[in-house]
Each structure stands twice: as C-alpha cells, then as structure tokens.
C-alpha cells in the first residue's frame, strides 16, 4: 500500500512538473503577436508604408466626375455645362431653381467616423498623411531616397486634400499632427490664408522631396511627381489670387493684386517644370482620354483604372453610352445649351452674330473639339467597334431611351465590345484612366496669370497653342484671339476656352466658383432635344432597309443638308419643368459645415451667410 501511495504521488508529481515546466511568466505567456495587421513597426517596414501610401492615394486622388456621389456630393458637381444641374435635386438647389440649400446639406468634408470608403471622412485621409509625415522621418531602416519619395507624395496628397477642402469651405480645421484620444489638436477653422500657406508649404516640401525622383512607367505610373506638385502649387496660388478668395470689389476684403504676381511666378515655374519633365500637349484632342501610358505626355496627375482588376473599375463607359450600345446614359454627360454655345466656330470666333452659324444646323462648322466631344443626332460615333456607326438622338428613337438630344463622346472607348460596357460586380467597364490634371490646364492657368499680370501676348500665345492643337483654323482673327484686346476680354476668352477644353471634366463648376461668375449666370439651364416631325416620318426613318446589317432609312440621311434635316426633325429646347432662372446666393461660394460636423465640437463656427454663420474664411 505504501508502494502504491508512492507511485500515485510520483505520477501526480510528474504531471504537475510537466504542467509546470511549460509555464512561462504570465506576461510573456500572454504576449501575442498581432496576426492580422502591423503596429508601430510599420514605420520600419518599407513595404508597409508603401501600402499605406497606396491606400492614401485611393482615398484622396479625385475620380471621374460623378464617380463619387455620396453625401450630397452633387452639390459640388454643379455647373452650367450639363443638363444634370438642371434636373438633379441638389443641382437645382445650388442654382436656386427650386429652393435653397440649408446648412446641413453640403457634406463633402466628413459624413462618418470612419475612413474605409472614399468620402467617409476626409480627416481620416488627412490622418494617414499626418501619420506618415510625423513618423517616417525617424525611420531607421527605410533608405533615405525611398523615404524622400514617399514623404513627397504624402505632402502632395495632403496638399491636394486640403486644397479641395479650402476650395469648398474656405477654411477648415487644419490638422497636421497625428491625433489620438489623449492628445487632440483642438482648434476651430482657420482662415483661407492659413490654408493656402500650408498647402503651398506642403507642396514646396513635396517639390523638394520629389526632386530627382522618377517613377517606373510600368509599375509606378500615377505616383505624384515633382512636376505634378509644381502644377498643383500653381493651381493653388491661382485660386488664392482668384476672385473667390481675392474679391475685386469687396470693401471688407481688399483686393490683393500681388497674389497674381505670386501665382504667375508659380505658373511659370510649373509650365517650365512640366516641359522639363517631358510633358506636352497630345497632338489629337479626341485621343487625350483614350491614350494611356507614356504615350500620353499631357497627363500630369492621373488615377488608374482597370476593367479586369477586381474593384478597380468604373462605369463611366455605360454612363456615356446610349442604350443601344449597352449604355445607361447619364444627365451629367448631356450638354446644356450653355455648353453648346461656348464652342466657337472653326476659326475660333464666337457663334454670336456669326454668319456661318445656323442654330438649326448648329453642329456644322464648329471648333473641331465639338465633334470630338458631342454626339448629336445623326452624327458618326464609332462604338463597340462599329465603324461608320451613326448615333440617333431624336425623341423615342428606336433602341434608345431617355430622349437625350446629345451624348458625350469624350470618355467612351470606341472599340470596347458591347458586352463589356457595363461594370458588373467587381469587373468590367472601360477601365479608362482619369486624368485629374493635364498639361493644357497648366498652360491655361499660366495664360490666366499672364493676362492678370498684364502679359497679354504670353496669354494669347498659350491659348493659341491650345487652339492649334484643337484643330481650329487660324482664320482672319488669329484663331479668334484677335477679338480679345483687353485684360477683361482675354479673361472672358480664357474662361470660355477652359469651358470648351475641359468639357465634362468637372472643372467648369470650380472655375465658375473661383472666378465668382456662378452667381452671375443668366437665364436658366436648358438642353436640346430633336423631335421627329411626325409619326409617319419616324416610321420611315426606322424602317430597316438591309436586314443583313440592320441598316435603316435614317442611316442614309445627309445631316449636313438643311433641307433633309428640316424634312424630318425639329430642334427643341427643353427646360426642365418649373425651373426658375439662375440665382445662386453669393454665400454659396463657401459651403456650410453640416450639423453633425459642426456639432462635434463647440470650437467650430458656421460659414458666414449660412444660418447662424459667423466664420468668414477671408
């Protein structure tokens, strides 16, 4: 029995020792590695910082207009170039066609306390940059050159972001340090001046850090470059000098002409920097968006898309295309009459009082950019690889719907097969890259600062190059430039040029606001439709004459022949029901902070002009 007892104790002891020997100190036993992410070690891991940078690009880099629409973003897309603004609920409110905006409406700045999706909260995007800018310099292991390249991009991205916020709000809280619950930068909004100083400072840092750094064409295209940072700086300073921030006749905010000098200097440097970096205008205006990669020297800032990479596509192709070619056409790409009228004749002279201009045959003899951009009734528009395909835009045209009188050709891919047009799930669409900033803009910015600082010849020279590339004939008026003989006339000409050159690229609204021309718009927003004279004519037009090809009678019409056109069609201006005239209040130039944002701290003031507003960004 004694023996048994001993055995028992022995076995038990072995058990206990075995258990005990496996023991580590509790704090060690409980210290586990994070298997689902990386902690502060990120700053010593080049690949991880690069991943963070990639995500930052994804969040900050602008998209095709209308790609992002959450949080009432339509308010910011509004301009007079398309029918969208006349028909969209928010668009109408901005122009006061149908009621006003209230302070709670604009929500670009932040809608959520999260940052996983674009537009959730721009300060989550700021935070990404701030984290990198604060932590990267101290990194021991990341090589200096790599660090510079990454820092430069973070600075440029932060500047882009703050620039957008400044554009919309005038001044917002300027957060430059990483935040956490125990250390918060608690401050209210800062003035536009401070915003611009910081933007320029960040861009200067970007320029310095990106100097001498180049990106691989095959794997790094789209990373911000020194030239891009210079162009952004010029653009920012252009805004700072422009009437939105530098009103001309506002006793409270005296005009500061010096800003134009600064802007001009930056514009000059950007222009020269871009040329030095190899940027130039594309020879063919209609191919700017259809050309990707090194061949596109005009593109300075782009966001890449792909039809075949999951979740990296867009559905712009479907938004542009007519239903007959598998599209889902969108009002954003439906030109307004303002837009149509902005195109000059083919010699650069405006349509007003022009003998060559016939309102019923308005598509004839225009600036070639018209044909490159607009699809009108009976025009030729190659889609789905169909050469000589003609587009019919008359009301109730067979196989179409939506009754749009015009479509936009600019962002369509003529050879994209029918079946690939729609984005379905994570794939599809054209995968066309978005060009956020192209050399033409650098030139026109430079032209504008030149004009404002009194260098009319330089301004004309730059615009002339744009018009030459567009295919405008020199004509009797030096590409139409001879008609501008003063700073004011040139200013108008440049504005018009920008509207045409950048049609549907989302720049028009910004320009109207920057120049404080938005509240001065007159008339109302209209779009065109073509109407078939009668049902019998419609039946005739749509009769198939060649069952093999599906050719119909209409496909044989000569749309340059006025008599023919008049036989079948009327051109009708449509006004969306009940829209009043343009009457945007001037305080819209700086949007309000919405309730959730402004309520999140007592430090914030509402923008002046809006209900309860006291904060004057200027």
């Amino acid at each position, binding site marked *: 029995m004694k023996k048994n007892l001993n055995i028992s104790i022995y076995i038990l002891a072995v058990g206990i020792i075995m258990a005990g020997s496996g023991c580590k100190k509790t704090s060690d036993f409980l210290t586990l590695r994070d298997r689902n992410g990386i*902690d502060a070690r990120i700053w010593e891991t080049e690949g991880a910082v690069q991943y963070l940078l990639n995500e930052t690009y994804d969040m900050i880099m602008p998209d095709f207009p209308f790609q992002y629409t959450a949080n009432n973003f339509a308010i910011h897309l509004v301009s007079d170039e398309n029918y969208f603004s006349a028909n969209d609920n928010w668009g109408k409110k901005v122009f006061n066609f149908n009621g006003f905006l209230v302070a709670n409406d604009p929500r670009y700045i932040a809608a959520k306390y999260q940052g996983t999706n674009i537009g959730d909260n721009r300060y989550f995007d700021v935070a990404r940059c701030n984290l990198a800018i604060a932590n990267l310099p101290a990194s021991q292991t990341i090589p200096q050159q790599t660090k510079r390249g990454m820092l430069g991009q973070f600075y440029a991205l932060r500047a882009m972001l703050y620039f957008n916020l400044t554009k919309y709000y005038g001044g917002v809280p300027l957060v430059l340090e990483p935040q*956490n619950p125990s250390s918060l930068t608690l401050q209210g909004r800062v003035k536009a001046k401070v915003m611009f100083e910081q933007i320029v400072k960040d861009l200067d840092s970007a320029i310095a850090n990106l100097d001498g750094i180049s990106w691989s064409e095959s794997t790094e*295209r789209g990373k911000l470059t020194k030239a891009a940072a210079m162009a952004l700086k010029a653009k920012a300073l252009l805004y700072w000098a422009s009437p939105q921030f530098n009103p001309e006749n506002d006793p409270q905010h005296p005009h500061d002409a010096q800003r134009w000098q600064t802007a001009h200097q930056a514009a000059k440097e950007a222009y020269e920097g871009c040329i030095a970096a190899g940027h130039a205008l594309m020879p063919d205006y209609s191919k700017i968006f259809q050309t990707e990669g090194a061949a596109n020297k005009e593109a300075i800032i782009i966001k890449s898309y792909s039809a075949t990479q999951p979740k990296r596509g867009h559905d712009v192709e479907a938004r542009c295309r007519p239903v007959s070619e598998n599209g889902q056409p969108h009002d954003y790409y439906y030109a307004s009459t303002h837009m149509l009228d902005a195109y000059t004749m083919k010699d650069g002279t405006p349509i007003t009082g022009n003998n060559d201009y016939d309102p019923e045959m308005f598509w004839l003899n225009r600036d070639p950019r018209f044909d490159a951009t607009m699809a009108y009734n009976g025009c030729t528009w190659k889609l789905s690889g169909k050469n000589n395909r003609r587009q019919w835009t008359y009301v109730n045209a067979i196989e179409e719907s939506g009754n749009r009188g015009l479509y936009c050709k600019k962002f369509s891919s003529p050879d994209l097969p029918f079946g690939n047009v729609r984005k379905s799930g994570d794939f599809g669409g054209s995968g066309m890259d978005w060009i956020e900033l192209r050399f033409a803009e650098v030139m026109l910015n430079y032209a504008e600062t030149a004009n404002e600082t009194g260098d009319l010849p330089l301004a004309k020279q730059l615009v002339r190059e744009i018009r030459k590339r567009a295919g405008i004939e020199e004509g009797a008026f030096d590409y139409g430039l001879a008609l501008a003989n003063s700073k004011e006339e040139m200013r108008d000409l440049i504005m018009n040029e920008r509207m045409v050159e950048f049609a549907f690229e989302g720049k028009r609204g910004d320009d109207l606001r920057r120049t404080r021309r938005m509240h001065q718009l007159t008339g109302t927003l209209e779009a065109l439709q073509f109407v078939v004279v009668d049902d019998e004519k419609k039946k005739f037009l749509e009769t198939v004459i060649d069952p093999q090809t599906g050719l119909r009678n209409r496909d044989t019409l000569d749309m340059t022949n006025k008599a023919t056109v008049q036989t079948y069609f009327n051109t009708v201006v449509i006004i969306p029901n009940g829209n009043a005239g343009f009457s945007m209040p001037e305080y819209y130039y700086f949007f309000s902070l919405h309730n959730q944002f402004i309520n999140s701290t007592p430090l914030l003031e509402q923008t002046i002009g809006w209900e309860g507003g006291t904060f004057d960004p200027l």
Partner: protein
Amino acid sequence: MQKSTAKTLIVMKIVFIVSTIATLSAYASGYSQTVTFSGKDVPLKNVFTAIRQQTGYSLFCNKQLLELAQPVTVNAREMPLNEFVANVLKHQPLGFRIDDKTIILSEKPEEKPAPPPAPEQREKIVRGRVSDDEGEPLSGATITVKGTKETTISKEDGTFTIKVPDDASVLVISHVGTATQEVNIEGKTMIAVTLASVNNNMNDVVVIGYGSQKRYQTTGAVATIKASEVQDIPSPNIAGALRGRIAGLGVSYSSGRPGASITLNVRNSRISEQAGLFGATPEPLYVIDNIIVDKATFDNLDPSMVEDISILKDASAAIYGAAGAKGVVLITTKRGRAGVPQLTYNGYVGVTDATRKPDMLSGYEHALLLNEGYKMANAQPNLFFSPEDLEYIKGLNYQSWFDALWQPSVTQRHNLSVSGGSDRVTFFAGGSYQNENGNYAGIKADKYSFRSGITAKLVRGLQADIAFNIDHSIKESKNEISENDQSFLEKLIQVPRWVPVSIDGKWVNDNGSANSHPLGHIESGFYHTNKRQAYRINASLIYQPESGFLKGLTARFQVSQAGDGGDVDMYRPNYQVYNFARFGNNEQLYREDSILSVRDVFIGNNSLLRRGLTKRNSYQGFLTLQYARTFDRHNFSVLVGGEQSASNGEDLQVDWMNQQMPGYDDYWAFDQSPNVSRPQLTESTKRSFFGRVSYNFDGKYTLEGVTRVDASSNFAKGKIWGVFPSVGLGWVISQEDFFRDRINFINYMKIRANVGLTGDDRVNARLWQERFAVDAAGYLYGENFVPGLQPTVIPNPDISWEKKRTVNVGVDMSLLDNKLSLGIDFFQNYIYDAFDKGNDQNFPMYAGFAAPVVNYQIRYAWGSEFSIGYRTRLARDLYFKSNINFGFSNFVVDRMFYNRFLLWENSPEDWQVDFGTDPRKYTSSNYGLIALGMFRTQEEVDAFLGKNPNYTIDGKVPQPGWLYFEDVNGDGVITDKDKTPMFNRTDPALSTGIQLGLSYKSLALSINIAARFGGKVFYDSKARRSKPTPQKNVPVFWTDRWTPENPNGKFPRWDDPSIDRGWESTFWAVDGTMIRVNDMTLVYNVPKRIAGKAGLSNARILATGNNLWVLKNPLKYKDPYSSYIYDYPTLRTISLGLSIGL
C-alpha cells in the same frame, strides 16, 4: 461472539460494491425483485454486483467476509431475491438479512438468537450506514437516539457509530432533503438506513465548476436539469430543448430553418450594441466536463450523451471569473459504470412541418384588390385588370410558388452507447447521428458524434480519466444558408398567383424577382455547405488518498486539447429564366406558348465557386487541490487551482469567378485568378488561479468563499489581471429545532445569499494596440495592382475586464409532505466597466479617428425568479407532477455613450431605448403614433378637418380609409415628430413555462407549456408594410380592409400614408397573450417481464410532439415564435422514439 463481531466491525473496511444505474425516468422507474444470474465459480462479489444492477439492492458487509467467501456456481432465472441470496450463500459461512434495500452479510452465527444481554450492560454500540434511495452514501445525516440527547453525524461514506442506552430502541435519522426516518434497533447492532429523498432535490449533487456540492450546501442560484428530462424532445440541440424549463434562462431560435442558431441567455444579459461589433457577447460561457468550449461544440453535443446540466446564474459563476459574467452553462457527460456491459439505444424519427404557412391572397383576390386601388387613385385604364382578365385568373389553377417548394420532411436522431467495466476500469462509448431535413432546397443539418471515455483506478487512490470525442456537423442547402431565409422566402411567397412557376420546365421570369427565380436557383446545381469536424481529448488524473494524513485530499490534473476544422463551399452556376410574352389589359398575364427572351442569371463574374477553410486549435489545462474533511459536525472543504489555456484559429476563403466550363464545380473550370478574402488569424491565451473555501456546520449553516484571478491576452500588459471574489451564506432553517418543532407544514427550508464579482474578457483582442490592416481593394499604378494598408484601430491601452457585481438572495422550500416545492430568487446585478465603444461624437469630427472601445457602461439589472413544483399521487399508480417557472426582471442603463446631438435631431429611437429609461416602455418597437381611428366616410373626414383645418398626415390631406392619429406635439400636422412611446409597457405581465407530468403504471405523459399574459405584440413590419403591386401579393388579412364598399373593414387602405412611411402606431398593436403547448411526450415503459422476454433489460417507447399547438395566438397570420411573416416557418415535429437497454 458478540465481542468478536463488534471487533470485526470496528476494524472492518466497509466496501460497497455498488454501481448506479440512472433512473430512466424521473419518477417512473423501479427495480425488479427477482434475479436472473448464471455462472460457474463466480466470485461472490460479482454476484452481488449483478444483484445490485438488477434489483437496486446494495450490499453492506465486512470486506473480509467477502474475500473469504468461496466462489459460487449458480443458475437462476427470475428467482426472488430472498431465495436467490439464500441460494448463493448456502455453502458459505455467512448469514444475511435484508433491510431496507440493503443486504447485510454477517458471519453465520449472527443468525442465531443473541444471548440475553447481561443485566449490567447499560448501553450498546450501534453501527450503520445511511444511504439515499439511489444507494449513494449520505454524509451529514443526523442520527439521534430517540428520547435522548445522543446525536451523531454520518461520515462521508455514510457510516456512523452511536452509543445507544439500553432502554432506547429507536433511532431518528434525518438529513436535509430526505424524509426523516425512525428505525427500530431492538436486537440489532448493525443497520442500514435508506432515506427516501423527497422532491426538493436537496441531496442532488450539483456541479458547480471544478467540483460539485450537495444541493443543500449551495449558496448561489444554480439551476440544474437532468438531461433525461429533455433528451426525448426532438429539438435541434440541448439549448433548444431547454426552452421554458428554467427560470431566468432565455432561449431564442433564429427561425425554424434546420441549422439556424439557437442562443441561450442567462438572466437577460445584455451588451452595448456598439461593443457587439467588437466581439462582446451576451451569451453565457459553455463548459463541458470542466473544459470551456465554444458554442459550436455545445450545439453539437447529443442530448443522450449528457448526464446533467447546471446553470450558474449569479456570483456562483465567480469560479469562472473570466467570462462568467453572462452566466455559465455546465454540462457533465455520461461516464462508464461498472458492471456487465450495457448497450443502450435511444432514438426517434419524426416528421416536421410548418406550424403555420404564410397565407396569401389568391390571384383573383389580388387582382381585385389592385383594381380597387387603381380605381381610388383614378389610375390610367391600362393598369386595370379587365373583367376578362379577372375571369381568366379565376380559372387559373397554378400552384403557388411556396407550395411548389414546401414539403414536410423527416428528422431523426439515433444514439447507441455501451458502458461497463469492473470496479477498477469503467468505460463508456457512444455514437450518435442526428439528421434534420429542411422543408425545401435540400436543406439539411446533420450531426455525427462519438464520445468515449475510460476511467481507471491505476493504483490506490489514483484514478485516470481519459475521454476522446469527435463530432462532425454538416449543413447543406441549395440556396444560401442563412438564419431565417427571409429574403429568399419573401420574394417567393409574394409572387402573384397568376404567375406560373414554370412552363414546360422553363422557369418563368416574373417582374418581382427581377431576372432570378427561387426555384430555378435551387434546381440550378447551386449549393452551399458548411461543415465542421472537431475532436477533443480530455484527460485527467485524480489522486484521492484513502488513508493517512492526506485523506480528504483530492488532487486533480486535467488537460484537454481540441481541434476543429471547417469548410464552407458554395457553387453558383448560371441558369436561365424565360421571359414569356404577356397579355391582358395590363400585360400581366403569361402566355404559355411564346418565349420573348432568355436571361442568364449568374453569367460571367456572377458565377462563383467558393472554398473556405477554417481551423482552430486549443488546449486548456488545470490543476486543482481540494481538501475536504468532516470533523464531528464540521464539514469543510478547500479548493485551490491553477489553469491555463491557449487557442488559435485561422480562416481562409477563396472565390473563383467567371465559370469557363459550365457543369463543373471545380476550381479549374473557372477563371484562374481567384479572389482571396482577407484571412483571419486569431490567437489568445489565458492564465488563472482560483480557490474556494466551503464550510458547513451541522448541515445547517454554510459559508462559502470563492476567488478567481484571471489574466487575459485580450488586454495590454498591466491590464491583464482581473480579480473576482464572491462570498455566500446558506442556512437550512428547517433543521433548527425551533423550526422543526413549530412549523409542520414546511418540511424543508433554506435561505441562501451570495454576493460576488464576475468578469468578462470576451471582446476583440488587441483593441489596446494600434493596427494597420490590409485593404485588398488597394490601388492601381498604371496596370500594376497594389494592396493598401489602413489604420484600423485607435488603441485604448486601458481596456480591461468588464465586471458584474451580483447579489442573489434565495429561498428553497418544500412543503406539505414534500409535495410542494418552491424556489425563489431575488437578484440585483450591477454591471460596470462594461465594454462600450466610445462615442464618436465626443471627438471633433476632424480628429480623424473612430472612438476606441472602452470600459464604460454601467447597468443595473434586477429581478426575481420563481419556480414552483408540485407532485402527488392522485390515485393508486397515478402520479402527477408539475413545475411552473416564471420571473420578472428589468434593468436600467446608468451610464452609456450616446450622441448628444441626436437628442434634438429627429432620431429618438436611437437614444430613448437605453439611457436611464425603463426598457419595458422605451423600446424602439413601442415608439410610434397614437392611432385615433380610421376615417370611414368622407363626412367623417370633413367633420374632422372642420375641427383641425390644417391636419395632414405626412403632408397629405386625410382621406376615407386612412388612419388618423393624435397630434402629440400639437403642431396641427402628423409627422415623425408625433411619435411617442405608445404604451406604458409592452412586455408581458407574466411569462411562464409550465411542465406537467402524469404517470400511470407504465405510462407517463409530460407536457411543456409556454404562456405569456398581457403585453403588446405588433404586426411585423413585413406583413404590415407589404403593399400589393402587380408583382407582389400580400397576406390574406388584407382582404378585410377599408373600401368604399366595405367601409367597416378592419385594415386601412394600403395607400395610407402611415403605412407608406412605415410608421409604427397603436393600430398595429394587439394584446400579447399567448399560450402554446411547446412539447408533449408520451412514454410507455415496457414492463420488465415483456422486455426481458425480448432479451432487453429495459425498453421504452415514446411519442413526442414539439411546437404542437398554439392555444391562443395574438397574431393569427404567423406563429408567435416567428419574427416575420416571411421567415422560415416555425416547425412542428411529431416523432416516435424508442429507447432500449441490453
């Protein structure tokens, strides 16, 4: 001789060769009085073992006697016990006596009449043993010589020795939880006493975590239930069978769909909704055989493998300090029993069908309803069904899409187990198979499990226990596996009846389901399966010295290692739906002969093949040292222990898209660039130390203290430790003389109280540390795809244990000759440092981060629980028992994060429900408009508008057939802002579970009833807001609605603006009283003699029904257990079962 016998008795070691067979039914069991046994040269010991097994009679004797005995040769068949024993002992030097279910052996001379006592002998020594009616020794019984002060207490092995004065002849033996018994000891020096336990269960062994206690010693609210009480119910798992049986235990089914989850909730545990997104859970902790397991393991446990279930509801859970805050469910599984191997089978086969199927309008009624609506709205003529169309629809005989789908199905469970062994080694092995078939789409939930265990006494005092378990569960479906299939069924049930399911085998594309077809989907080859295979090794070594200075010590070392692997497979091939030509005035009717076009449903990147794999591994090991001794009337036990556990897991899922080779559900048939979703890796470790001290005096007073110290890897260094103490007191007041002498109708009464702290660490790990996580959506540089990295966690370095202080006071009573038992508990819980996500709005929106998870919320919860049992004999052989349990509870949130700006923004549902308010009143479902009535006529409208000129409902001027509401905010119009709490409370006044049992001879019937009285229930929003359209049918109750022809209809026009807006209103509330028969079991115990003829030791046949009848249903259109009309219906199961032992 007398002396030598006495001496023998003093030195003898008493051994009970006993084994216990669980009574097969709580109160309808019995042993035969005959023995069947054959054998040659069998040790006498084995013969008595057989007697014990067959008759329940145990042996009481000097061990040496038994060892000295010769082996015997017997051959008996159903021989009466007396005769059999006499037969066996015929050639032995032994005599015997049968005394109260105990066979007492003695040396033969004892049988001779004792010589007359010497006159000078004033007293004698009486020795004895006290056992309960299951033969288990009873310690702590009080033995008193009647009429004297001589008293003693039985030891742990039930034995006692007492001096009896000569003139006394009666011993009074009492014990809590048993009937007091008087024994005549005239002429006896050795007695065996069996105390009949009474139905207060006070002698039951209650598993309380790392040990067990007698019920009378417990100080906390511990509910127990024998698995035998629930194993016959054809429910998907143990959790489901517990519905309505335990006060304070909530059981909720997601739906009737096989495989849908069933969750348990102890005393209405709650979490902050936000914290729920970060891993906090209101579920209790599941512990099987001392090892903490996950929910899936608990769900896969076959009820037939379970011995008993304890639920720790209060601070008694402090021994599980960590994660004990939401209660603990303790399961003990079956173990082997010594004796000849016993084979047991039990199982059932049943049929399931919906208790209620959604009742929708016929095609004709639907079309009429639409026409009426169009008429009222002055709609264009081309929307109407023409009279010819209506006639056509009337003549249609299409099967409804639901009927085309739904069929009754079969469910079954089979369990086979073997148990046996010697007194040194026992074993248990059992396998089970459970199969639940859904009612459509090949839905199936199958479980296979195998459990085995071996217990060996290695050397004296050392015992090893090794168990090995495997389970395998399979869920299959030809539509997506979900909890309630709502979206699938909703679409299907709402298809108008004039739409055929298919025409010539071609699936009809109806407008409503927009290029898909529920039945086409099922038939397309689509499948979705979830499988899980798990194993567990559970080994323990128990050292329990039987003598020496270590006597009373129990050392236990237990280690368990487990692993499981699972896979998720989904295959979504393309299939086609057909657009048939339409006709009729509004083009709604289907032409059977003309196909306009064919649509592919899952073409290109919508075709999918998914393969997901998961694996988990864990171990848990602990060492406990327990020392328990009884000195005189002092009974104490000390337990200390240490525990460590670790687990890790991994998930991986890959999707292939764009099927290239139709018909193959293999990866190579798809586009070869799969989509890998973010793998999940988890790791956690925990280390704990704990102790329990328990002291009981005289069977009356119990003092107990428990402390557990836990360290969890979920928190940062310095915050890992949590300390969870508790203390409890118990007083068996009925053992006091003053009580016993005065109050006769109370047989037993105990008052107990405890207070303690429990904790919870169940929240996501690493919330204390910053984390950058991969975002697979990434970014593109040119055509070069690169992943992204997101900052995802704003760390809260201080995050630590959630805590709950609980106070529980309870009374256990048994009255009226133990016929009535009563259990009452009052509790108060104070939950603090509860996990809550910090309020984002407390930070400026430009801070650029989301608020971290913090220990913040404070809640108070309180309540009472009542459980009343009554059992009696109604007539000869007719027994009745019943048990009713109910409880009342409430809580208030005392501190929480809330968005202060929502206080004036118009979203009251978000905040009114929680903070500082009475949740019985301020719940989102109770928030709505006060309906004043319905406008029946234009005159009524005009009269009303006369008084309230600007009255509008959601901006619309009232019309006849619309509901109208009280203008709560007084602004003259009805908007969102007029919403207000509608009723003072919506919860039932009383909600109870009732179990009734009746047994007559071999028949036993038990019934489980659920009842709810008062309160409000609401028409569910799906039923209420469904509006008929040409694509959507509506529930049949809509026939009784207001129309110009039927101005007294019960329901409003469906263009009522409040329906449009989905506004709750008092109109949709009905009295919530509900009574239903949940389940009913009829058992026939086949009499021994018949079973014996079939070679069986016992046999039972049973018929069971689950979810049988709803006697009072507040909302007739659905089963009260279903949340929504379109959920997978609640199922009724009728089954036949068999249970046999060999």
